[in-house]
């Protein structure tokens, strides 16, 4: 006894509907005889039988839809006696409910290929936003971009972090965990000086200063400026300001210099390929001495348009971020002029070396009490030594002098700054 089953007529045929039997039980059939008609999505197709014999019993009635492989009739090979009526045929296997999705051609059990799907390695290009967090010894830290940005924001030293990401890379979660750990750390667990690698910085300063001296024909001017009006105004202004809003002389120096540069624009810009390129705005590079050595001059953008309060906030922010390694590389590369001030414990006069490719550097010495002639009489005045070093390729002494005179004039009317 053998079964005549619903044939597969096409690559994507899963089931067929029996339309009509062309043979009846007891009929003799030969190989190749058409015994039934089946309906498919392509239309009605005649079905052949591939075995000779006598049709025994019909299992599927016209109109029934059954999956490929379902027994539709039994066949007695030639000469076999009619089988006794077997138990009623169990109903053809319940047609599997039409799955929501195409029943994926049951792929033979395919072990996932041993070769892991190649994950393309992360692009190695350096981050644009944040300076390279080189661990000591220059080994690049494997860290995800999101983690790197967060670390910068939290001023975390990446070098000492152990990553839990792919191949030990530092992930966002690692940064968050480290940040939490730091806050709860006992006070004595002070994070050592953070941010820049002093040795690398020293090399960078040396290179810049050597190039400046080599290429730039400096000329130098100095001027002593009376600060009585400025300091008196400052003291009065700070009296009714909370500490967070109090101003320092540095704010006045930056504002005066920035406003003065509007009158002498040829000192605000760059010397490139034998030509002066004016700055796109007045961005004052404020020289900050780092604790434990090193110097950096990040930019205060559009200093001429900022209020004294805004300048003070900018100065405090720059100093704080400079010391914790949180400066953006763009802040280091786009000042249009540099202003340096050694503060209360510096020398009386500082004359700077221009930071290429800028074309000028203004210096403010220590504020000291000096004898001062006022209307022919001798008086004592707080004064500051104001200096300018400028690139003689871009400007001449006369123009430099005008700048210093303008700074002095502006410092006499602090309330207008």
């Amino acid at each position, binding site marked *: 006894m053998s079964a005549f089953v619903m044939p597969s007529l096409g690559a994507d045929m899963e089931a067929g509907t029996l339309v009509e039997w062309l043979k009846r039980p007891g009929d003799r059939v030969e190989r190749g005889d058409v015994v039934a008609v089946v309906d498919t999505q392509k239309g009605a197709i005649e079905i052949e039988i591939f075995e000779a014999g006598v049709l025994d019993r019909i299992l599927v009635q016209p109109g029934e839809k059954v999956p490929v492989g379902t027994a539709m009739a039994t066949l007695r090979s030639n000469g076999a006696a009619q089988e006794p009526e077997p138990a009623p045929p169990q109903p053809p296997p319940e047609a599997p409910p039409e799955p929501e999705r195409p029943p994926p051609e049951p792929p033979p059990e395919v072990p996932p290929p041993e070769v892991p799907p190649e994950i393309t390695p992360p692009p190695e290009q350096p981050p644009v936003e944040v300076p390279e967090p080189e661990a000591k010894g220059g080994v690049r830290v494997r860290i995800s971009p999101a983690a790197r940005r967060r670390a910068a924001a939290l001023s975390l030293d990446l070098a000492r972090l152990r990553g839990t990401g792919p191949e030990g890379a530092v992930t966002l979660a690692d940064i968050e965990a480290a940040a939490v750990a730091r806050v709860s750390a006992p*006070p004595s667990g002070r994070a*050592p000086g953070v941010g820049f690698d002093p040795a690398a910085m020293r090399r960078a300063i040396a290179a810049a200063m050597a190039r400046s001296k080599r290429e730039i024909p400096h000329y130098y001017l100095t001027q002593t400026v009376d600060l009585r009006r400025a300091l008196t105004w400052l003291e009065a202004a700070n009296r009714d300001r909370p*500490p967070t809003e109090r101003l320092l002389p540095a704010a006045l120096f930056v504002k005066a210099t920035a406003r003065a540069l509007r009158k002498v624009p040829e000192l605000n810009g760059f010397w490139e390929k034998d030509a002066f390129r004016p700055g796109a705005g007045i961005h004052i590079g404020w020289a900050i*001495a780092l604790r434990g050595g090193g110097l950096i001059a990040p930019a205060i953008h559009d200093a001429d348009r900022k209020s004294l309060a805004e300048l003070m906030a900018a100065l405090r922010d720059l100093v704080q971020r400079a010391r914790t390694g949180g400066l953006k590389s763009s802040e280091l590369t786009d000042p249009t002029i540099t202003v340096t001030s050694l503060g209360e414990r510096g020398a009386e006069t500082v004359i700077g070396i221009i930071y290429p490719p800028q074309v000028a550097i203004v210096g403010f010495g220590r504020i000291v009490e000096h004898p001062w002639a006022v209307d022919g009489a001798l008086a004592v005045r707080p004064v500051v030594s104001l200096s300018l070093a400028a690139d003689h390729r871009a400007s001449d002494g006369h123009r430099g002098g005008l700048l210093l005179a303008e700074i002095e004039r502006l410092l006499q009317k602090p309330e207008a700054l």
Partner: protein
Amino acid sequence: MTEAELRQIVLDTLGDIAPEADLAALPPGKDLREELDIDSMDFLNFVIALHEKLGVDIPESDYPQLVTLDGAVAYLRNKLGI
């Protein structure tokens, strides 16, 4: 708040400003600005930190009283009345 706690807060504040400094070895009577290489910006941040942590107002005119560790502690004790 005891005087010892107040002294520790002052030391912690100085530590934030001069992380690499060895505060244990700081002579309490010496000028902080010399000992810890503190400029006007650092000193302003020192004042701001004390103001925020302790809620005391410190006018500019009082700055000279805060230039030594002992001076600062005494000044703050007086201000806080402890």
